[in-house]
């Protein structure tokens, strides 16, 4: 099993208010599996995604990814682990507006010991895979939403991570662009066997996944193939 989540509890504090977002969630994701997390707003989908990606730490429970326990690691160790194993795709692309497509995709490679030439090769390969080899020198403001999300996907895969985490990857796109992005994720999943955990509100997008996990009020209420 690639990802094993056991009894995860997460609570947020806002002023005097305490909100328990996840109530002892268990979830397994196999290598090469595509899991869609669905549920209403506030159900804990993104929180669970962040915990699996090591962006946050649970109050209780265990998260084991690729045999490595994430709980108990400090911020620096988690950052190092994320750089090696996780590829992120965000709803709003989260590209650096001051950098070109090439430079954005190159960012995670700056944390690796690769040479400049090797980084260039990797970036060109990743951008070719998302069909943007001819847009390397464009800035995000010069690209469409769909193209920006492709750049973000290229950035997510350029380090060849163990799995991809996608938070509403089509949420900011029109139907056609969204479909193209889903097709791209599907290709990566099928051709390279990448495991994907995707948060989505869109049932159409969720159909692409191998498995649908439905959360409500911090608990998994449905887990179906």
């Amino acid at each position, binding site marked *: 099993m690639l990802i094993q989540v056991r009894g995860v509890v997460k609570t947020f504090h806002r002023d005097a208010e305490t909100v328990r977002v996840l109530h002892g969630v268990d979830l397994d994701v196999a290598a090469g599996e595509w899991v869609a997390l669905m549920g209403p707003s506030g159900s804990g989908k993104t*929180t669970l995604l*962040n915990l699996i*990606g090591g*962006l*946050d730490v649970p109050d209780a429970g265990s998260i084991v990814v690729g045999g490595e326990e994430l709980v108990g690691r400090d*911020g*620096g160790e988690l*950052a*190092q682990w*994320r*750089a*090696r194993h*996780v590829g*992120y795709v*965000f709803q*709003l692309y*989260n590209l*650096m*507006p*001051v*950098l070109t497509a090439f*430079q954005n995709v*190159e*960012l*995670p490679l*700056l*944390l690796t010991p690769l040479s400049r030439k090797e980084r260039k090769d990797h970036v060109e390969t990743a951008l070719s895979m998302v069909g943007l080899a001819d847009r390397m020198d464009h800035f995000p403001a010069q690209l469409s939403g769909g193209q920006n999300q492709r750049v973000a996907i290229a*950035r997510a895969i350029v380090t060849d991570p163990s799995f991809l985490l996608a938070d509403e990857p089509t949420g900011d796109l029109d139907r056609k662009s969204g479909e193209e992005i889903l097709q791209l994720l599907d290709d990566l999943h099928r051709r390279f066997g990448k495991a994907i955990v995707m948060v989505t509100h869109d049932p159409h997008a969720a159909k692409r996944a191998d498995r649908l996990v439905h959360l409500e009020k911090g608990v998994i209420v449905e887990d179906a193939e």
Partner: protein
Amino acid sequence: MTGILRYHLLSLWVRRAGTALSVVSIGMAVGVLVLVLALRDGFRASLATTGREDNMVVLRQGATSEGESLIQRHEWGTLRDYEGVAVDASGEPLATAEIYAAMNLDKEGGGSANFPVRGVMNRSFRVRDSARITAGREFVPGTTEIVVGKALVGRVKGCRLGGALEVAGRPWPVVGVMDCGGGAYDSEIWCDVEVFMQAFRRDMYGTVVLRRRDPVAPGGEDRMAMLLAEDQRIKAKTYTEPGYFRSQTRELGDALLWVSIFLAGIMSVGAAFGTAVTMLASVAERRREIGTLLALGFRPWQVVVGFVTEALVLGIAGGAFGVAIAWPVNGIATGTMNWNTFTEQNFAFRISGDVVLSAVMFSSAVGVLAGFLPALRASRVPPSVALRG
């Protein structure tokens, strides 16, 4: 790390209004620092570069300046013939006895100030040969003729070739203008020492200058100075000629240094706050970008280094701006009271390499101090929170 630095540097360019504001505020503080340091260095340079290392200035023990020193005529005779004094082609010792005083003179454009007057022997032009007559001639011994330093021309009434100064109720004609390349003598008035002593009812010299026959090896012992120090006939205190002038810059030089630290310190607090506010705004605006960097695997310390680098660049740019706005004063002549001699000293503002280096180091420190807190704040936001923007 160069790739991530590119992101930070480009971010400064994209937010150029805030960047420019920080650069200007730091630059203003640096400009003040540069101006005062240029004043100090100009003052120091004008004195410290005066004269020759192989000229020995002899004062009375206990005197801290030429104006306070008294040397009797028989002591001058002993000193002139001292072992180790060089002689000229005619066998005359290259030695001179002088008297130094302050004289209140009217300035062009109103007001008056004390200016240094040096009663000298004609031989002084050969001994203190850093001063050269560039217009007119030397004075004739036994007359009230005078030679003036070039810095006084146009600053003091009557100080021009063909002009005259009112001294002891009589006009003393200016027959020559001398130039010592920006040094102390450019601000002095030279006249015959005996005429001066008669006019001011003095009977003792103040200073003796001796040209050494044998140079002192660097780090070697100064035998002539040691002999003089132990000589019971003369209670003497010796300096090299530039060394004496350096000693005369200490009080004002130190005061100017403290003034510069004080003024630049106050202004830099304002500049640092301005830069910190700009950086905090930038950090708030780029929260999602910071979250993305952390999500991609950049460590919090790398985020700190990135933002501190931005602040450092702001500081260096501010330093360059400060030097640039102060640069027009470089070389401009001015005058101030020398607190050691209580006479007006003319000099030019001097923005040296050291001043530029001090300014840039200062502005870099202001930038880094101002940027550190915002940088720390940026790095401490949990990535999951930062990603929400």
